[in-house]
């Protein structure tokens, strides 16, 4: 018997260690704990992290999340008030506010998520159905869009405007939140917020939207082309006008200048030739001689009689002089 004594000692020690291990447990910073006695929660939930004691074997430790958790809704298709089918993907934040209640009603996170799916899913559907699409797209009511100066037409703006809203996205989200929060509170769950992650057209609606966008763009393109042609025509017109103006103005000025010069020359001649009757006669004489020079050219045949002043001497040698 004596030979077994150390063995017994060893077994006792092992048992003691096992009991000690069963009595101690740790709580992480990320956890909160519900102690259950044969499945029934006892005492307050423990939320402070560190080393804790319990009755070994009798008490069981149920660990619950203390951090904020994520609810990620499945994207689902639903109609808006204006009967547009859209795909909505939302998310939310929640945490376990009342661990005891949570533990009793839901047990684990999987069922909590599915409860949230049901409640939030239906609230989102309701909210979307009560509002027009633009209400979940836009958020600030009085925003004026900046304009692309390249696209702004000379006459009117063809580019699209922002559609007006009455509530906007944050208010719709808040509506969902205020409706859903009390419904999940009974499970010991605190809903922190609900937000839309994605709101998109369903594929068949998207095709219509694309068609509209295309026609809108084509209209803008057409306007550009016509603007170009119009502007070019204006320039061509201006060109014609400028040309006519330049040419006619030049003509007018030229005629004025020439006229003035002619008048001046005329005046000068008149002053010179008209100073006395003798001067006028002399001018007539001189000018006639000048004219002879010009008129009588080398293809002229001149028939002169001996009677003429020049040839008189041919016949009458006795009469010198012309007079």
């Amino acid at each position: 018997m004596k030979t077994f004594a150390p063995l017994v000692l060893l077994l006792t020690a092992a048992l003691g260690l096992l009991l000690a291990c069963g009595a101690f447990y740790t709580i992480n910073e990320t956890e909160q704990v519900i102690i259950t006695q044969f499945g029934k929660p006892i005492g307050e939930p423990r939320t402070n992290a560190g080393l804790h004691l319990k009755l070994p074997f009798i008490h069981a430790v149920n660990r619950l999340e203390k951090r904020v958790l994520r609810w990620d809704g499945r994207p689902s298709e639903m109609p808006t008030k204006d009967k547009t089918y859209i795909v909505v993907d939302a998310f939310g934040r929640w945490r376990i506010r009342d661990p005891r209640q949570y533990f009793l009603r839901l047990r684990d996170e999987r069922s909590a998520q599915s409860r949230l799916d049901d409640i939030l899913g239906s609230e989102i559907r309701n909210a979307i159905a009560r509002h027009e699409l633009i209400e979940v797209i836009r958020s600030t009511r009085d925003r004026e869009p900046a304009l692309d100066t390249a696209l702004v037409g000379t006459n009117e703006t063809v580019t699209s405007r922002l559609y007006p809203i009455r509530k906007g996205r944050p208010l719709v989200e808040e509506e969902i939140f205020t409706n859903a929060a009390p419904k999940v509170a009974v499970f010991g769950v605190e809903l922190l917020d609900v937000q839309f992650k994605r709101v998109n057209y369903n594929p068949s609606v998207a095709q219509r939207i694309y068609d509209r966008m295309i026609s809108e763009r084509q209209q803008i393109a057409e306007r550009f082309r016509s603007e170009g042609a119009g502007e070019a025509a204006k320039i061509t017109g201006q060109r014609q006008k400028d040309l006519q103006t330049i040419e006619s103005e030049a003509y007018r000025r030229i005629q004025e200048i020439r006229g003035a010069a002619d008048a001046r020359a005329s005046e000068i001649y008149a002053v010179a030739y008209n100073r006395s009757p003798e001067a006028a006669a002399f001018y007539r004489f001189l000018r006639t001689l000048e004219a002879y020079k010009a008129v009588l050219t080398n293809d002229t045949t001149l028939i002169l009689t001996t009677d003429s002043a020049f040839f008189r001497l041919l016949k009458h040698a006795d009469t010198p002089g012309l007079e």
Partner: protein
Amino acid sequence: MIIRLGRTYYTLPLRLLAGGVLAVGLLAALVSTFYTIEAESQGVVLRFGRYLKTVEPGLRLKLPFGMDRVYPVPVRRQLKQEFGFATPGATNPDQYTDTREQELERSMVTGDLNAASVEWVVQYRIADPLAFLFAFRDPGHALRDLSESVMRTVIGDRTVDEVITVGRQEIEAEALERLRRQVAQYGLGVSIDQIQLKNVNPPAPVQASFNEVNQAQQERERTINLARGEYNKVVPRARGEAEERLRTAEGYAIRRINEAQGDAARFLALFAQYTNAPAVTRQRLYLETLEEVLPRLRGKIVVDETARQVLPLLQLQPAKPTP
């Protein structure tokens, strides 16, 4: 120690056994006592699950056997999340999603109910390791959800033209501000450094029509430039030509007046001499003129006063050019 099992006696080297167990235990303790924190990280130390301290990079000691647990958090690393696209080779699992998801991340509805495809990047760092570890489960995912929501909120308040062309900077700035506010409100423990828009495009089926608008814009410029070119080709030239004709006319005027003055002066000078001896001067001028004129003439016929009847016999056709 000797123990008997059945009929066989065994000798147990108890000391050696105990020593061996002790040595293995010590070695394990030693190995789990030392740890290193990388230069880019801080270590958060939990003792029995409770937060103890935050340590800086270097070789550190802790209590072994899971009593102390260390969570390294890369606080100094620049982290990023990509939306709508993925850079290959990323180590941060929150940086991107799979291809199908990227497609959904990209597509958005704008405030004029058009569609746009937006890709962007969020640059962030972990600012508060405690909050990052203990406030949220899966904070990286929470950040992804938030930035998608924020980006759609911002895009939803803008027209498709703003999103694609003029509004980019403004969108980045507003999204950054909103995301920072949300992250602070959530207590995510990260600080957002930047939001950068990457490819922002109209949806693929619409792209062609957007290009068409660009082309039309170019076309407009081209048409206008052509018309301007045509204008510039003729108008300055016409101006110059008008100027030329004007100058010519001015030249004419000067010449006309000068000639008139010259003629007048000449006449007056001549007239002054003429008045001294009118008859002689007149005869001289007459004879000089005839002398100059008559030799040039082709035919000179001097007829006697009494021989007028020969005139019809003369051939008075103009001269034919001699072959």
